């Protein structure tokens, strides 16, 4: 008994010593007289590693500011955290927030538009991708700085297509180009390999509409005013859903469902050669090239037959400066944004993560040139981004409640993939979204503004 007690006491002492040690370590690290810029981000995996490297380089490069990165979990939850902590001592000076939260963050009135700093310093924004900038601006004012940016693209397994003697899809494919490749692959493989998978993902639904030049929300996708209704059942949407439904029924396309498990399953199937093509974010490139020896092919996002592609918008997140911090802190946050956007860092960012380099000068950086040499297909998403001329239908949807919109369109897609009537499913989702918009606008009193 006594011995047990001695052991227990010893353990307690060791435990306390460890705690004390860690705390003393922390407090010594905190002894930094520089201005603290708390930076909230939601990057995981290689993105987080590279971001932390950038932070360290920035902190070492000057002695006025110190950026403190803090990981805040997933995009969706981060939005609520940002809004609920504003004005408190824990709130961030600089934060990363996802593409579809743009309107919500802007309407909160909690941020200083980066345009203020652009004007003050005469910062040359023409170097930054126009499509990406357009997504995060309102009436010509840059609200936030686009950061991790991806494009939806079509991936295909070039080795697999070659094995069955199938001509790969063209650079800018139409729906019927894809159907041909998918059907041939499905048939020639003895129905063992599925042709295409389009994950049930609202982002992809939005991109089909963008590429077809069809507005999802009224008031020109919210770019000319607060949207009061949505249109899920237009020509392009119906055409696209019909295309998907028919091919899922024939067996050429595969339905992996919705959510994180769907994209994981899709990726697993592609990497194991059971799936020939799929639509997904360009940010997956590094994972795809690392995961298989097969040659990877990439083309532009498909468009409906008989029409030109309008170009797709972007996905990812942007960087915002909170207005509840002193102007000195805000300046520091802006300096860090500028640091991240320089040509060299943007090139490094693309090589490390697969997100696109937004600075036009990055294309001349040696790191990026080296990547293109070893993986020529990695050029495609950037080319797709640069060829697109931003207009109101391909610059994102400036509307609150886009998370709800995605949930509803995904439900409609689930119904359609399982064989329901296309029009009914789309109209049902549309009705639900319209009533959501009505009460959301009422609650936020946006119409009275």
């Amino acid at each position, binding site marked *: 008994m006594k011995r047990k007690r001695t052991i227990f006491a010893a353990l307690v002492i060791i435990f306390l010593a460890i705690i004390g040690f860690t705390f003393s370590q922390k407090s010594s690290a905190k002894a930094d007289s520089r201005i603290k810029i708390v930076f909230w981000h939601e990057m995981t995996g290689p993105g987080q590693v590279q971001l932390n490297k950038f932070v360290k380089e920035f902190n070492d490069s000057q002695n006025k500011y110190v950026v403190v990165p803090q990981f805040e979990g997933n995009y*969706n*939850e981060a*939005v*609520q955290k940002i*809004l*609920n902590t504003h004005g408190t001592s824990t709130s961030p000076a600089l934060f990363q927030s996802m593409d579809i939260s743009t309107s*919500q963050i802007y*309407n*909160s009135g909690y941020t200083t538009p980066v345009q203020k700093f652009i004007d003050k310093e005469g910062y040359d924004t023409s170097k930054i991708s126009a499509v990406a900038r357009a997504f995060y601006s309102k009436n010509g004012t840059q609200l936030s700085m686009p950061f991790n940016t991806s494009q939806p693209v079509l991936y295909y397994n070039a080795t697999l297509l070659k094995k069955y003697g199938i001509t790969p899809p063209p650079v800018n494919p139409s729906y019927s180009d894809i159907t041909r490749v998918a059907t041939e692959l499905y048939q020639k493989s003895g129905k063992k390999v*599925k042709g295409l998978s389009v994950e*049930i993902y609202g982002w992809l639904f939005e991109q089909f509409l963008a590429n077809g030049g069809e507005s999802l929300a009224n008031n020109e996708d919210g770019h000319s005013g607060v949207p009061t209704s949505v249109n899920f059942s237009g020509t392009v949407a119906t055409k696209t859903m019909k295309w998907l439904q028919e091919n899922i029924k024939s067996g050429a396309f*595969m*339905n*992996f*469902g*919705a*959510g*994180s*498990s*769907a994209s*994981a*399953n899709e990726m*697993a*199937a592609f990497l*194991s050669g*059971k*799936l020939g093509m799929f639509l997904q974010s360009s940010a997956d490139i590094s994972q795809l090239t690392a995961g298989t020896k097969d040659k990877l092919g990439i083309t532009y996002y498909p468009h409906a037959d008989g029409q030109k592609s309008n170009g797709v918008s972007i996905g990812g997140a942007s960087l915002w400066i909170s207005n509840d911090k002193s102007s000195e802190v805000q300046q520091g946050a802006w300096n860090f944004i500028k640091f991240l956007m320089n040509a060299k860092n943007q090139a490094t960012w693309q090589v490390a993560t697969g997100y696109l380099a937004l600075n036009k000068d990055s294309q001349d950086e040696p790191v990026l040139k080296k990547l293109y040499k070893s993986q020529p297909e990695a050029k495609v998403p950037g080319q797709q981004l640069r060829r697109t001329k931003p207009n109101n239908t391909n610059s994102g949807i400036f509307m*609150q*409640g886009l*998370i*709800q919109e995605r*949930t509803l369109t*995904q*439900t409609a897609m*689930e*119904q359609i*993939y*399982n064989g329901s009537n296309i029009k009914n499913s789309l109209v049902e989702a549309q009705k*639900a979204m319209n*009533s*959501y918009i009505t*009460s*959301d606008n*009422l*609650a*936020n*009193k946006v119409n009275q503004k």
Partner: protein
Amino acid sequence: METQAKNPNFNIASKKKKSAELSLGYNPYAKDKLYAVLFLGPSLLILALFVFYPMLRTIYLSFFLTNNLGKPTVFVGLKNYFALFSSNAYINSLIATLVYVIAVSIFTIAIGLVLAQAATKKVAGINFFRTIFSATMGVSVSVAAIFWLFIFNPSVGLLSQLFTALNLTPINWLTEPGWAMTAIVISTVWMNLGFTFLIFFGALQSVPYTLYEAAQIEGVSKSYQFFHITLPMISPTIFFVSIITLIESFKSFGLIDLMTAGGPNNATNLLVYRIYQDAFLNGNYGLASTESVILAVIIALFTFIQFKVLEKRVTY
């Protein structure tokens, strides 16, 4: 206070004290009240702060529309409630939740009982099986989800490979509404089994062996013994487990979030998951509060019914 009443000596002592105080002109119960406040105060304070206030706030919010900062802005009375009950999606969620809760409860209890009964047999290596049967208690939800996702994977998963090997068409476990619910029920039952098994196993051990000996002397069959000795003797445990399982399955979240995210076509969008989506994804705190109030009422109702109906069947 209760211990005072039960302890006669203490009572006498306090009475003596009280009479002494009485003569001095004190209120005899003032001190008791002071003690009551002193002892109950801290716990009441904590409860008020973390249980009663949030509860009342939830009810309050359920009558409002909230803006994108989560602040109540427009009073709508019972409109949120009407909106929910007239929405097909919500009614579907209610039905799905009932199906899920009932299926999970029944299978968990039945399989748990069978496993526990089997584990009471004294055969070689039984300790190994006892450990295995209760092992899921040590598995976290996220690990279980990854494990089951691998089994249900449509192209490289264990089940689809098995089906292909047997020349059967593989089932799209997580993308077809009916199968998705089945998959979620299977995973949840598996998760729950460890705990249920352990509780039942403990209960079976406590059934007096003499009863079985008497039954054997009477020459009664094994199944008769099970239904007429074992079941009645462990009925309080079954009652306890059924309530716990029921409430737990009403509240289940992790497996659904990780495996189906409420899909396909809202087939597994259970009440709690819907609340999470509305509150923390859509920022619609008013509607989410309404849903929480409804869920609380439903759970209370079920527990009440269980107490009324099942308690009568509990033998002692």
